[in-house]
Structures are given as C-alpha cells and as structure tokens.
C-alpha cells in the first residue's frame, strides 16, 4: 500500500451494477480462469468493453457497485483484465470484501465528476487520494479500517493468512 501510485483511464458505469452484469453466473460453469473470464466482462452491458479494456484502466461506477451474488469471479475477472482499482460512492459489502481479499483496490467517493476516458491518478501520502488529470478535480476517498488496510498491504487475504494464520486486530 505504501508507495501506491496508479494511473489509468476511467471506464465509467452507472448505479447498481450487479455481479451478474460484471460477469454472468453462467460463465463460471465453463472456467474459473480470470484470463478466460475477462473476455466476458460486462458482456450484457457493454459489448465492446472486454475488447477495449487495457491493463491499468480504472473502473468507475455509481452507487451500490457489485450488488447481488457474492461470487468471487466478479473480482478476479476484473483483476484478470489488469484493472487495479474500482471507484464508486458505495459498494455491496460482499464485493468490497472480495476486492480487498484479492488486492483489487476499492475506493469510496463521489464519482460524478469523472467521465469516460478521464485519466485518473491514485496516490498515497497521508491517505489515498485520486486526481482527475483530465479536469483537475481532486477526490479524497473514505479511509479504510485498519484490518482492511492490513489485508491490502499484505497483498490480499492469501498472503495475510500465510503471515498471520488467523485474523489479528
């Protein structure tokens, strides 16, 4: 987490994007491989997304991102496309947890000032901040609780559990 420095294009979606919209439940019947699943990201919402997504792109959405199913592939398929962060004013709790556990950075802030294709820089000094290089707007996401920061800093829940063996506060 320290030394965090990301820059990427904003890929913008609306409110209440459910996990079936991120990746259809039916796709996980055939493969759990993020490199396979990434081909079907947002297939029913945006036919061109999977072909046009580039590593480093940042997902931006409206309220309640990731509502619905708790399926983990809705996070791993996003990571599989090389997307390092998701920014939204609110998340479903299961998506937020799964994101932290897999090292996908979920940031909570008002996203109305971000447009499709805007260049976003995410950096960390005292806290994490987002700078929209395309219009100069600076956003301050809500701070994460220490347990979530600890899991993210470890690189996700797998390295965290390898280090600690259990949860420590």
């Amino acid at each position, binding site marked *: 987490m320290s030394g965090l420095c990301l820059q990427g294009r904003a890929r913008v979606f609306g409110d209440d994007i459910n996990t079936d919209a991120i990746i259809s*439940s039916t796709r996980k019947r055939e493969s759990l491989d993020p490199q396979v699943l990434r081909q079907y990201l947002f297939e029913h919402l945006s036919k061109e997304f999977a072909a046009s997504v580039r590593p480093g792109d940042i997902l931006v959405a409206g309220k*309640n991102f990731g509502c619905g199913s708790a399926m983990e*592939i809705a996070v791993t398929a996003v990571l599989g496309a090389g997307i390092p962060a998701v920014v939204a004013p609110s998340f*479903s709790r299961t998506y937020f947890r799964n994101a932290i556990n897999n090292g996908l950075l979920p940031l909570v802030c008002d996203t109305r000032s971000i447009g499709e294709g805007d260049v976003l820089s995410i950096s960390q000094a005292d806290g994490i901040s987002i700078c929209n290089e395309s219009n100069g707007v600076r956003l301050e996401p809500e701070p994460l*609780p220490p347990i979530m920061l600890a899991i993210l800093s470890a690189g996700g829940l797998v390295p965290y*559990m390898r280090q600690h063996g259990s949860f420590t506060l």
Partner: protein
Amino acid sequence: MPGKTISEKILSRKSGLDARAGDIAVCEIDCALGTDASVPMALDYFAAMGGTVPHDPRRLVFALDHYVPPQSAQTIELHRITTEFARRHGITLHGAGQGIGHQLIVETGRALPGELAVGADSHAVTYGALNCFATGIGSSDLAAAMLCGKIWLRVPASIKVTLTGALSPGVYPKDVALALVGILGADGANYCALEFCGPGVATLAVDDRLVLSNLAVEMGAKNGIFPADATTDAYLYDRTKQAYAAVAPDADAIYVRELAIDLGSLTPRLALPHLVDNVVPLDQAAGTKVHMVYLGTCTGGRLSDFHQARDVLRAAGGVAPGVQLVVTPASRDVRDAMIADGTLADFLSYGATVVEPGCGSCCGTCGVIPPDGATVVSTANRNFKGRMGNPRASIYLASPASCAAAAARGAIADPREVAP
C-alpha cells in the same frame, strides 16, 4: 451504556468483546456453508494460504446445488473437487439433487438461535429467520474460515422493522419482502442488519420468516434477523439435539432507522425487470402477457410455497395455453412431501416441468433457460438482466400465489381475483 441489538449481542458473544455497531470484531464461526459454485475456488485459496486440514470440519457444510445435474465435463469436475475434499475431511456433504444448501442448512438444524453462520453464497442471510446471525461471504473468506474458524466483521448498525397485524388472504411473505425492498431500495440497508420485531412476527411461520430474511441481501443488508419464539423452538425440535441460547434485543438498544409494516394493509407486489427494487403494486402491471412461470429457489421453493401456488391453479382450473410452468423444489424433503401429499401430481397434471431439487433456473447455471423475448414471472429473489441465463428475457418477481395466477391467466393477474 445503552442496550444492544440482537446482532450486537450475538457478535459480542462470538468475539468475546463488548461489540457495538461500527466496531470490527473477530468472531468464532459456528457453521460455514460452501457450494459447488464457491468451494472449488475456496480450496484454491485454502491451499495457497498453506491450508491442508480444515480447522474444524464439523462446522463445515458443502452442498452441490448450482449445477444440478452437472451438464458438462467442467461442472462434473467442480463436483468431484468438492466431493473429494468433503469425504477426505469428514465434512457434511449434500450431493447433487439433495437441494439448495441454504434450505438444507435450515432443514437439518445447522443454523441455530444465537449462533453465527456464514455461507459462501449471498443468500446465506436466509438463516436469520432462526435468530442466527447469518451472512454471505466469498470463496476467499470461506477459505480463511476453513483455515482458522474465524471471520472479521464490522458490527452492523441495525434497522428495526416492526411488523403488526396479520396478512390478508392472497397476500404472502414475498409481498412483504418486496414491499420492504421497495421502501428501502437495493442499497437502503447496505452494511446494516435488518432486525424484525413486533406482534406480527408471531403470525409468521418459519417458512414465512425465511422469505423475509432471504430478501434482506437484496436491500444490501449484512443479515436479516428475527427474534426466537415458540415457533422457532417447534421448528428446531426434531432437527437438532444441540442446546442453543436465543438472543433478544434490549429495550434500549439503538437503531439507525425504524420502520413499521402493517401486514394487514399490504396488497400483492411485483418487482419489474431488471432491478429487485423496481417494486410496484401488482395491479399496475396486470395484463402483461407471460410466457414462463418459475416456482422454486431458496426464496420460494418450500412446501408452503407450492401449496399456495397449487391452490390458485386448482381454483383457476390449471395453466393457460402457451405458458411454460417450471417447478423446482428447494430440497429432496420438500419434493418428497409434495409427492406424499399429492402436490407434485397436481403440478404434473397441469403440465409442469419438474426439475431436480437445487438452484435450478434461478441464476442460469442449470435447469430451464427462458427463450428470447420471454416474460418470466418467478418466485426467485433476483431479476437482473441475464440472471436466468438469457439476457433477452424479462423477469418479474412475485409471490407463489401471484406466479400461479400469472400461469393460470397467461398474464400478470391478482391472485385474489383469480382464486377468490
């Protein structure tokens, strides 16, 4: 210090802390469910974490419910992976065709009052009906739970939902749940607990409470919990030998929001495509032509649901021409009871397609897929575009009686008019 909600009390008990809304608590898990859709990934995380043997296999339950019957080499492999791990470590395993994991957890007395259950499937919230703090998690959290027997949780603030009165004829718990989703919205209870209370609770059977708890996640809630009473004890009497200590809220507990629902004044509700909080009084969509009616899932696949639907179809004289009726019992016990009391024969006589107990068509992973352009009325919990496996279908959510009324008329109709 002020008093505590049910959720604060259970998480205090399970963490050994004086847990209050907003606190982070590391809690001991009493029961964890995994399914064929979540266990295979969980086992990858578990191995990567250095896990070999589960911390306490007796607290784990695996269910093969999403791919029933498995229809490809890949899904057969997911069943093999899940089954082999369960057998090797003595984990309770419900095989394909036994039913939906959530229903089996409840039926077999694995979710108990005052306890903490997690499930690697969002509808694990269902067990809140039995005064159990129950919440959904992903495969990674299930892996950590298998490794250490614990989970960290932010103690939720609670929304108090006071139920008064009793449901009128033709109005069912699904209508109450949909009305609540309409009031709160798809994120209106994000990170919160829904705590049900009031004199209306006593009028609801456990099957009814399960519907309300099940839909809690469609409002973003972490859990949807009921108090325990004589109805709870009677339900569990034959299902568990284990002692339990139910939890009631303190009179001076603090709630983030309070709302009241008069059960007697409710009318049938409908969630329009493609969002669960797109809720309207059913009358507003009456007359919409229907092609497929789906009865099943962890929301509406229990014996009482099928009785309610069957009674409407019987009164109306069967299913309208051109409507495909699909029936998926939530468990083998439910199906066997339907065989024993003639309900299944009734559905077959109406031309229903009966599918093996499991998740069925709900999320398009197995069962009958609706055709292009189809309008579906379903007892399920989600109507997202593509949810049942076809993005060119439109899904409406309703009570079993309202679904049956739609099947009988070939169009959305008020069950109180179809079967007065």
